[in-house]
Every structure is written in structure tokens, then in C-alpha cells.
């Protein structure tokens, strides 16, 4: 087998050194009843060519986003990633290294993490950021649990504009830890309801901007209300490119900012691996979950980086750790950092402006066809499809036959909200004017206009 270097001769010699009669002797501790003599009922080994053929056939049964007009967003976004990014992340030294526990021979990974943390803090307008979480939704759940440690209160208010999957993950995980999760009804504009719900038991309020309906919200008033009640404001962002155009969570008073970072440097990958961004105010740093990379010096006084404040973590604190997270999204963080280095301040601003411009074009093109609900948007809008078209799902299915993937029906995220007529559509710099024209024309045709 091509991945196994030992020859039969090697094995025999090694058994001799060990003093074992055969390989079975090394498995002597396994109860005899559990030792399988026969091979499992699975295919035998396959050459590279054969594996490529099988996987190629499976891949061919999927419709890649880039193969035609495509408008899905709702927490995952198709952006163009420069070729340099994928080249560098496949370098052996990054791809095949472990968590940097030996800093003397892991400065490459550690310096990248320090750059990553700095970039995330800058984007979110916060003081500090960690070395990544699994994805935006688990980062959100971790933030809610962190608010409990900081405030010693139990109640978390989730705004009706929060991505339903994020709400579900938070409800699952934070509730398990004993928190009381108040999930507000889905709403485009959730500000007033959130402010009204804050009370003296509230540990945190969780508000997303741009929210799941694409609405950009100034959360300053929510921050004021939360702080007046002694609660924390957690701001969630699912489209990291928006940081290049919109006021940052930090500028608006967030205590913790979490985001999905997939948009920068990472492919859609059918949902994973993605990268959770997690940033907060400096005074909360000891309650943060996850790994942190910090600057220090070596024995000769040279600057270097190490994993630090590890006493928050599971390998030291065990049952008293701030989180159980161990492996995070290291390589996705590297991709994020390289892409953002290539973009820089001007590039990210241009990219964000282009995304927004395309969405304005989309909103204008659809304005006469369907009802555009999102008043202020970044690169995503919610529209209401007319009753005669059935629901949003049937519109998406119908447009598939035109070769167009026309976005995400809100009901796919939350089937019980009674919002079956809401369709979420996103544009990025990869969307062309032709794509938008094709969508608009097909919609008109399907809706009989």
C-alpha cells in the first residue's frame, strides 16, 4: 500500500527486536472476542487513479456555485480567492504541522496567528481576538457562555435577526451549560424588541448585523441599553467582507464581536471547514475561550511568539476551563490572513464597495418584480415573492430549470417562522451584471410579468 513504508522484511526484523512471535502478540490485551479475524465488509484498497475516478464521479453530480448565476448567501458567501492563498496554505510547513506547542520550531504558525489576531481585532474594532473557533455559529455560542462567566447572570436574549442556525447552536450548547436562552421571533428590524427585553437578569444580548435578512443595523442604542442594565452586547456578523464598508461592532459599543470568517480566504466547501472569529474588549480577555498567541522574547532577547494565557484552557484547567475547544481552524485562519494581507486596507474596502454595488444593482433590477424588504443592506437582500408564485422554495426550484440558483428560501433556515414567501439573495464581486439580468428576466418570466 502506497502510504505504508514497512516491508514484510522490516516487519519481521522489528518483531524480532521486540521479541514478539507475530503481530497478533502485540494485540494480546484486546479481548479475544473483540479481535476480528476477517476483513470488514468494505471495499479493498484502491489506486490513486481509481479513487480519483470515484470521487470525480461524485463531484460531477453536484452543481458548483461558479457554473452559472448563483445568489446564495445566508451565512456562507462565494468570493474570489487569489491563487496565492491556496498555494501557500498547501506548503508542507503549514499544512502538515500541528498546533504550535513547541514555539521554537513553530514560529511560522505562531507569527501568522499573531497577525491573524491583529487583523480580526482591527476588522471588528475590538482590542483582542483569539486564534479562531470552529465557525461563526459556535463562536456565537461561546460568546454567550462567556457573558455568563463575566456577568454571573443566566439569561441571553437572541435577536430575531440572528441567523436561525446560530440561534439553534447557541440554544443547544449554551442551554446545556445552564443558561436561559430567549429567542425572539424572526423580524427584519429587531432593535426595539431587543431593547424592550433587556432586564436586570440579562447576561447578554446577541444582535447580528448585517442580519439574516441583510439589514444593516446601528446597534449603538442596543449597546447603551445593555450596558445600562449591566449586560454585554454580542455582535454577530456572518459576512466578514462587510467589515470593509460598515461601522465596526467595536465602534458601536459591542463587548464581544463574533463572525464567520469564511468569506475571506476560504471556499464554500458545502459548509465547512469554516472559521469562527472571536474578539472582545481587553478587560474580558481572561474569560475568552480558545487559544491565544502572544508576543514575547527568547533567551537571547529576540522577538517571538507563544501560545499564552493557557490556564483558561482545557489541557490545564480541565473541568474549570473557559471552553472545551482544542483543535480550532488553524489552516483556515492562515488562508484568511494571507487573503487579507493581499487585500490590505484599500483592497478590502474596494472589495466591500464592489459587493455593495452589485447588491444595489440586484435590488434595483428586482425592484419591479418582487418586493424588496431590506431597507439598508450590504451585499444581501430579502425579498417577498408574490402569492401566485407559490412560496420561495418553489421559486428557487423553478429557476433551477433555467440554470439559476436563485438564493436561499428563509424557510430552509427556519421552517416554523411562517415566512415561506421570503427569499434571501446575495451578491458578491463574483456576481456579474449578466447574472443579475438573467435572474431578473427569469423571475419575470416565472411570475408571469
Amino acid at each position, binding site marked *: 500500500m502506497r*502510504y505504508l513504508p*514497512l516491508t514484510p522484511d522490516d516487519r519481521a526484523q*522489528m518483531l524480532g*527486536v521486540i521479541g514478539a512471535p507475530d*503481530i497478533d502478540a502485540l*494485540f494480546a490485551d484486546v479481548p479475544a472476542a473483540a*479481535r476480528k479475524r476477517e476483513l470488514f465488509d468494505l471495499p479493498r484498497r484502491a*489506486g490513486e487513479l481509481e479513487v480519483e475516478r470515484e*470521487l470525480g464521479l461524485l463531484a460531477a453530480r453536484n452543481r458548483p*456555485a461558479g457554473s452559472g448565476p448563483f445568489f446564495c448567501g*445566508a451565512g*456562507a458567501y*462565494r468570493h474570489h480567492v487569489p491563487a496565492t492563498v*491556496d498555494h*501557500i496554505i498547501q506548503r508542507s*510547513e*503549514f*499544512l502538515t*504541522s500541528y*498546533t504550535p*506547542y513547541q*514555539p*521554537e*520550531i513553530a*514560529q*511560522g504558525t505562531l*507569527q*501568522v496567528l*499573531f*497577525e491573524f489576531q491583529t487583523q480580526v481585532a482591527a476588522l471588528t474594532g475590538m482590542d483582542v481576538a483569539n486564534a*479562531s473557533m470552529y465557525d461563526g455559529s459556535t463562536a456565537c455560542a461561546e460568546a454567550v457562555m462567556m457573558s455568563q462567566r463575566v456577568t454571573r447572570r443566566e439569561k441571553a436574549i437572541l435577536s430575531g435577526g440572528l441567523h436561525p442556525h446560530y440561534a*439553534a*447552536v447557541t440554544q443547544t450548547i449554551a442551554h*446545556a451549560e445552564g443558561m436561559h436562552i430567549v429567542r425572539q421571533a424572526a423580524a427584519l428590524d429587531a432593535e426595539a424588541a431587543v431593547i424592550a427585553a433587556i432586564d436586570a437578569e440579562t447576561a447578554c444580548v446577541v444582535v447580528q448585523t448585517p442580519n439574516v435578512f441583510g439589514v444593516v443595523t446601528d446597534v449603538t442604542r442596543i449597546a447603551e441599553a445593555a450596558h445600562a442594565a449591566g449586560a454585554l452586547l454580542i455582535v454577530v456578523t456572518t459576512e466578514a467582507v462587510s467589515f470593509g464598508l*460598515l*461601522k465596526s461592532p467595536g465602534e458601536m459599543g459591542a463587548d464581544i464581536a463574533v463572525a464567520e470568517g469564511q468569506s475571506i480566504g476560504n471556499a464554500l466547501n*458545502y459548509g465547512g*471547514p469554516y472559521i469562527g472569529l472571536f474578539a472582545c474588549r481587553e478587560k474580558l480577555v481572561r474569560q475568552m475561550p480558545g487559544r491565544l498567541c502572544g508576543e514575547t*522574547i527568547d*533567551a537571547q532577547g*529576540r522577538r*517571538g511568539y*507563544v501560545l*499564552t494565557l493557557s*490556564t483558561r484552557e482545557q489541557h*490545564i484547567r480541565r*473541568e474549570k476551563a473557559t471552553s*472545551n*475547544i482544542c*483543535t*480550532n481552524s*488553524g*489552516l483556515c485562519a*492562515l488562508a484568511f490572513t494571507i487573503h487579507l494581507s493581499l*487585500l*490590505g*486596507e484599500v483592497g*478590502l474596502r474596494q472589495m466591500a464597495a464592489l459587493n*455593495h454595488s452589485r447588491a444595489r444593482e440586484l435590488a434595483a433590477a428586482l425592484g419591479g418584480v418582487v418586493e424588496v424588504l431590506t431597507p439598508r443592506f450590504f451585499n444581501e437582500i430579502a425579498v417577498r415573492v408574490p402569492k401566485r408564485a407559490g412560496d420561495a422554495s418553489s421559486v428557487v426550484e423553478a429557476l*433551477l430549470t433555467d440554470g439559476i440558483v436563485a438564493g436561499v428560501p428563509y424557510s430552509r433556515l427556519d421552517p416554523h417562522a411562517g415566512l415561506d414567501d421570503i427569499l434571501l439573495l446575495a451578491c458578491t464581486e463574483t456576481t456579474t451584471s449578466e447574472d443579475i439580468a438573467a435572474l431578473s428576466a427569469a423571475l419575470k418570466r416565472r411570475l408571469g410579468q
Partner: protein
Amino acid sequence: MTMNSVGRPTAPNAAANGAEGFASLTGARGLLQDEPLLFELGGWDKTGVDFDAPDHDASDLGDLVRAAPIGLAGLSEPETMRHYVRLSQKNHAIDLALYPLGSCTMKHNPRLNEKMARLAGFADLHPLQPVSTTQGALELIDRLAHWLKTLTGMPAVAMTPKAGAHGELCGLLCIRAAHEAAGHGHRRRVLVPTSAHGTNPATAAFVGYSVEEIAQTADGRVDLADLEAKLGPDVAAIMVTNPNTCGLFERDVIEIARITHAHGAYFYCDGANFNAIVGKVRPGDLGVDAMHINLHKTFSTPHGGGGPGAGPVVLSAALAPFAPAPWVVHGPDGLTLVEEAKDQAAQAFGRMCAFQGQMGMFVRAYAYMRSHGSDGLRQVAEDAVLNANYIKAMLSAEMTPAFPDGPCMHEALFDDRWLDGTGVSTLDFAKAMIDEGFHPMTMYFPLVVHGAMLIEPTETESKRELDRFCEALLALARAAKAGDAQRFTGAPYLAPLSRLDETLAARKPKLTWRPEHDATPAAE
């Protein structure tokens, strides 16, 4: 004939022989470059990406637009390439040399897997596009699930957890949901052996359980009597790693499962060490109720400097109904995803992450499994165990194995008795390995062994590489015993940096670069 009139010498002269004490003028060391931070190299006005100008402005957003600078630095493409390639050269990697971190399974990462994961039909799929357009992806998830179930002998698998610890959380949430459904919500205690990885107690605490330790026997296994004494009507589960973190198979595992079940508790198995038994032993035959599988360990998906991982959890029939959404089902129109647990299975405990889990890792793991097949995977386990026992046998000449009697599984555990009186600690010894070109082993873990050194070679090391490794460690061990302490206490000498001041980093945390930041922090 033509003459080379330049006359450049082509053999080294005497002066080039031995550069002891030599220092370059710039701080660079030949191929190894000093590399500043991105923020010191780049500029706010520099970029490596070209965009068209937008057709529309952002006037519609009014004061929601970010006016202040973000604080990013940009680089052109060639500068970006240099920056990150230079940084990469400061990392150790499996592709460079043995990476014997115990319980981490640092095996070769086949590049075929990378190629497959990058097929547009997998990489360029949106998690929410219509399932009719992702039938091949769902089929791949379903096939991978079939392999995982067959290899573990378990009837169900929850695919979405994103890493081992996330899998542990998923497993314990299933257990909690099952107890609550049976009216046993009062079961709140979890028993964990003292040798367990830190994620086990952290996860149990995460779901609101209290944690109690199970004692270990002198031969490194779960103490059955202590387990039995601590089991009771308030115990929800035990969390046992098998093979355990001492690199030993829990001989009494079937009895452990039996008495756990007799007390109404579930058996969660930490599958971090599945590589030792894959293709040979099915955890389902041992009485396990739930076990996560680190695809980034056993199934070769790259560790990437700390992730991403993937941690699907196989489940027994008793726990399967409580698995989280989403999952793949066969329907009349092909495969589909159940994304909202409420509709079809009222018992599902919720959701672990935003979408379908680590699809990119699924593709890699499946390509790896298909490459090996059932025969190759069995050979994986056998070679992994053979390599570890070979290392144990070879190194026992100078070092003290923590559990000398009987074979180990896929990793060999040593303690530090053999360093007594040398003035060299486990840490010093590990750092000296760096100078010899090897990554240190896992140190000071498991906690039950003094000065622990846990060595996991994996099956992808050749005998030649194992011999090189053993010779290097034996030579180091002899040097330590011969009184050459300085070789160790100041090590590493040949790494890009010498030992780093972790105390300074923790006392005065600097977690981001700031413009006013000095290039070099002052020592305290």
C-alpha cells in the same frame, strides 16, 4: 580548447570549514530569514488584488459606513509570497521529519486528498443550495458514514461535529438527552480516569455535569473496583479513552461497559487513539455507546497548524434517536438533508454548527479510506502498533518505559526516572531533540506518569526513519547520563529561536500588534 579564465575556486578553502561563533551582519542565517510582522512590512495603501471600480456608491448607507481607518496592512503579491514562505520555513512539519506527538497521530497527509477536496464539485458548493444540486456531496457524506459505522460496528453516526472536543460535546449531549427522555435527568455525574485528556472533563463540565476521577491501576488501566465504587444512580456516563492515553488497551473494557450499563450509565469512548485498532477491533463490540473519531488523526486529514479537524460521533442504537440535525436520508427523489430536527425526530437534541459539518475533511477522509480499503486500514493499525513497540523496545536500552510489562498499542510511554540525577528534565530532553532535527514527543501528559514522554510514531514512518530517531534519542540519553547537561538545559541551540519567555508573555499579554508597539519588548 576554450579556457575558463575566471578561475573561480570550486572547492571550499580552509576558512569555510567550521563557522563556530559566526554571526551574519543582518541577523539572517543563510536560507533562514528574519521576517518582520505584516504590519511592519505592508502599507495601508498597498494591495495585491485588483478590482473593478464599483458602479454604485454607498450613499444609501449614510452614517452606517465606516469612516475611521480599519488598521489593516496590505502587500503586493510577490511580497505576500515572500512573507509567508519565509515564515513557513520556521515550522517543523511531518513532511520534514518524524513528528512523534503522542495521542496526536501525526501521520503522512496524502496529497491526493487535497486534490479531491479542491474539485469544484465539492469545494465550490454552497451549504444551502438546493439538495437536488448536491446529490454527489450527500452521497459522499452517506458513504463516509457507512465506512465509519462499519469500522466501529455502530448503527449510527452524527457527522456534524467539527473537531474531537466538539464530538465529545455532541456525544454527551446525546447522553444527556437520552437520560432526560427516560426521566433520568437527575443523573449529573460523569466519571473520567485521571489519565484522560483535558477535553474530557472540560466537555463534561460544559454540559453541566460534575466530574469525578476514576483511579488507575499500577499497570496503567482503569481501576475496576474504584469505578464500581463510584458508579451509582446519579452517574450519567463514563468517559474512557481506549486505547488509553498511556498507550495501553483497556483489557477489562468489556467488563467496564457491563458494569457501567448495569448502573444505568452510558459508556462514552474518546476515539482519539482509534488509529491503533482501526480495521481490527470494532468499538461497538466492546460495549461503547458513543465515540468521536478524529478524522484529522486516524483518517489523515492535515492538522494545518491547529485545525481544522472533524469529529463525527458514532452512536449506539440507544443514543441514535437523539443525534443532532442535520443528517442525510434516502428519499424517493434521492438523498436529502433533514435540517430541522423538530419535523422528523422530536428527540434530536439540537444543532452543533451552522451547516453540514466539515465537508472538506469528509472528502479527504473518504479518499484516504478508499485508498486503503479494509485491508489497508487493518495494516495501518498493525504497522502503527508495530512501530510503537519497536520504539519502546529500542529506547528501553536507556530510557524507562512507564509500563514495561506487555506490549503497548500505537504509542510508547516513558517516565523520567532514567533522568534522575542528570540535572536534565523531560522538557530539556525534548528541547534537545529539536537540535537533532526531530519534533519533541508529547510531554508531561498523561498526568499520571511523572515527567511523561509519550511517543507516537504512526504507521507512515519507515524503519530507516525509526532507526534514525531511536539512534538520536539513545545518543541524547547517553549524553544526559554522561553529564553533558548543557546540551539540554540551553536547548534548542539550532532552532530559529531559543527558548521563549512564557512567563513574560503571560504576565504582560501582548496579543495584537499596535503601531506604538516597540519592535522588541523589554525584558522584565
